[in-house]
C-alpha cells in the first residue's frame, strides 16, 4: 500500500478539439481531504474520468489504491472501492429514490445500509419520489447518498455542493468531515467554492490548462504565502533585485503590495532595510493564491 491513494505521472490526454491534460502530476495522500481546484475547462473532469477508468489516457501513468489504471479488470476493481459523484447530477429518469438505492446496493460489497437510511432521513429525500421530479439540490444529495453509502475507501466528488443552498452545503460538509474522521476514507473533491475547500481540505491542488500548477498541504501553503504591504515615506524606491519568492508586485501611489509565495521573511527584511518604509504582513486566503496562480499561467 503506497502513501498516496491516487498518483498520476505526466498524464496526457487530448480530444479532437483540445488538449485536456498535458502532463498532469497528481498525488493524493491516504486519509486526506483533497481539494482539486481549477477553472472550467482546466482538466478537472477529464482527470476524474481517467481515474475512474472511463477514459484512456494518451500517455503517462495513473494509479489508484496502488493499482495501475490500465485494463478493464483493474478499473472495475478500482471502481468497486470508489464512491463517485458526477459533475452533471443525472440519474435514471425512470427510477424512484428507493429504486436507485436498491439498484446500486448489490454492486458494492461494502455497502452501508445504515448510512443510506441516515442520509435518506437527513437529506429529506422522498423514497417514492421519481428522480426527474427532484430539484437539482435533491439530486445532488441523492448522488452523495449513493456515493457515501458504498462504504468506499475513496470518494471522488465533482462539485458535490453544486445547486445546494447554504444550509445544505453546511450539512454536506459536515457529513464529509464525519466520514473522513470515522472511516478514514480519503475525499478527493473538486469545487469552485474556495471557501468550502479552505474549511475542510488539508491538501489542495490547483490545475490549469492540463497541468498541476501547485499542490500540497493547505496549512503549508497558507504559511508560506504572505501579502506584504510596503508604504514608502515619499518616493517609491524599489530595490534593483528583489529577494527570491515574489509572486507579484502591485503599486498604488506610495504603497506597494507584494504577494510572496515563499521566503517572506527575507523579503520583509529587504523591504524594511529600505529607508523610510513601513512593512505590514497580511495572511493570504486560498482564493488569492488560486487567482494569482491561474492568472499568471
Amino acid at each position, binding site marked *: 500500500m503506497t502513501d498516496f491513494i491516487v498518483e498520476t505521472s505526466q498524464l496526457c490526454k487530448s480530444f479532437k478539439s483540445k488538449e485536456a491534460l498535458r502532463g498532469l502530476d497528481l498525488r493524493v495522500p491516504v486519509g486526506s481531504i483533497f481539494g482539486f481546484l481549477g477553472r472550467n475547462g482546466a482538466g478537472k473532469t477529464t482527470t476524474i474520468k481517467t481515474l*475512474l*477508468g*472511463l*477514459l*484512456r489516457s494518451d500517455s503517462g501513468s495513473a494509479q489508484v489504491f496502488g493499482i495501475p*489504471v*490500465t*485494463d*478493464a*479488470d483493474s*478499473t*472495475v*476493481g478500482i*471502481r*468497486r472501492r*470508489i464512491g*463517485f459523484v*458526477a459533475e*452533471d447530477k*443525472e*440519474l*435514471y*429518469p*425512470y*427510477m424512484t429514490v428507493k*429504486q436507485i438505492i436498491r*439498484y*446500486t446496493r*448489490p*454492486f*458494492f460489497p461494502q455497502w452501508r445500509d445504515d448510512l443510506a437510511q441516515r442520509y435518506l432521513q437527513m437529506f429529506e429525500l422522498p423514497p417514492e419520489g421519481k428522480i426527474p421530479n427532484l430539484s437539482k439540490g435533491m439530486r445532488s444529495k441523492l*448522488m452523495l447518498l449513493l456515493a457515501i453509502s458504498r462504504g468506499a475507501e475513496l470518494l471522488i466528488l465533482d462539485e458535490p455542493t453544486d445547486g445546494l443552498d447554504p444550509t445544505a452545503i453546511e450539512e454536506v460538509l459536515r457529513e464529509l468531515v464525519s466520514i473522513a474522521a470515522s472511516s478514514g476514507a480519503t475525499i478527493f473533491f473538486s469545487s469552485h467554492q474556495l471557501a468550502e475547500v479552505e474549511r475542510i481540505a488539508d491538501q489542495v491542488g490547483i490545475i490549469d490548462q492540463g497541468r498541476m500548477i501547485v499542490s500540497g498541504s493547505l496549512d503549508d501553503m497558507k504559511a508560506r504565502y504572505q501579502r506584504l504591504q510596503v508604504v514608502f515615506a515619499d518616493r517609491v524606491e524599489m530595490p534593483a533585485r528583489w529577494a527570491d519568492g515574489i509572486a507579484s508586485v502591485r503599486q498604488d501611489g506610495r504603497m506597494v503590495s507584494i504577494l510572496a509565495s515563499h521566503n517572506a521573511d527575507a523579503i520583509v527584511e529587504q523591504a524594511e532595510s529600505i529607508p523610510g518604509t513601513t512593512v505590514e504582513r497580511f495572511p493570504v486566503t486560498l482564493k488569492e493564491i488560486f487567482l494569482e496562480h491561474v492568472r499568471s499561467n
Partner: protein
Amino acid sequence: MLWYKGWLETRFRLLFALGCTGLVLFQLHLIPPDGKSKIFGILENLTPIILLMICAMLSGAGIVTQAPFQAKKGLQASTIFTLSLPVSRLRLLAVRAGLGWLEAAGAIGALCCAMWLISPALRMMTTPVEMLEYAGTLIACASAIYFLSVLLATFLDDVWRIWGTMIGVAAFWWISSHTPLPAFTNIFRAMGKSSPLIAHTTPWNAIAFSVALSAILLFAALRVVQAREY
C-alpha cells in the same frame, strides 16, 4: 440488477413493439376464413417488416456509444453514472443485448399466439405445431437482424442505428433475392415463403445459417466493446 434496470428502461419500448404487431393482427383479422392467399401476402411481406421494426427498437444499447459523454440531460447523461459502477462495458452490452433479445423473442412469440387466436383463416390452414415451428423460425431468423442492430449500436447513436439496421436489412434482402447465393441464406424467404406455415416444412438450413450469423454478429459486437473498454 442490470437486468432490472434494462427492463425498466425498455418496457415501454416493448409495449410499443407489441403495439406494432397490432398492425399485422389487424390485417389478419380482416381476412375471411377462406382468404388463404391474402394471408400468404401478409405473412410474406408485412410480418418481416414488423419483425425488423421490433428488432431495431429493442436492440438499443446506448451505454456503449461515445455519445453519452456529450449528452447533458436525461437517459444519456446518466450513463456516466452507470459507467462509474464496477461493471465492465462488455457486461453492460451483454446484458442489454440479452435482455433485448428476450424481449424480441417474447414479442414474436406473443405475435404468433395472437395471430393464431385472431385469424380463423389461419387456424384453418395450419396446425398449432406448425405455428410453434413458425414462431421458432421467425425468432431464429429475426435474431440475425437483431444482432446486426446490436453491432451497429456499438458505434452508432439511436437514430442512426435504426436507419443503419433498415439499410442493412434492405441490402441483405436485395442481395438475397438478386444474387445466386445458396437458398438457405435467404432468411427472408425462410420467414415468408419457405416458412412452416406456407411451405409446411421447417427451413432448418436457413435457421442454422441465421443462428450462425447471429453468433458472429454478437461476437463482433462484444469485440468492438472490449476494444473500446479501458
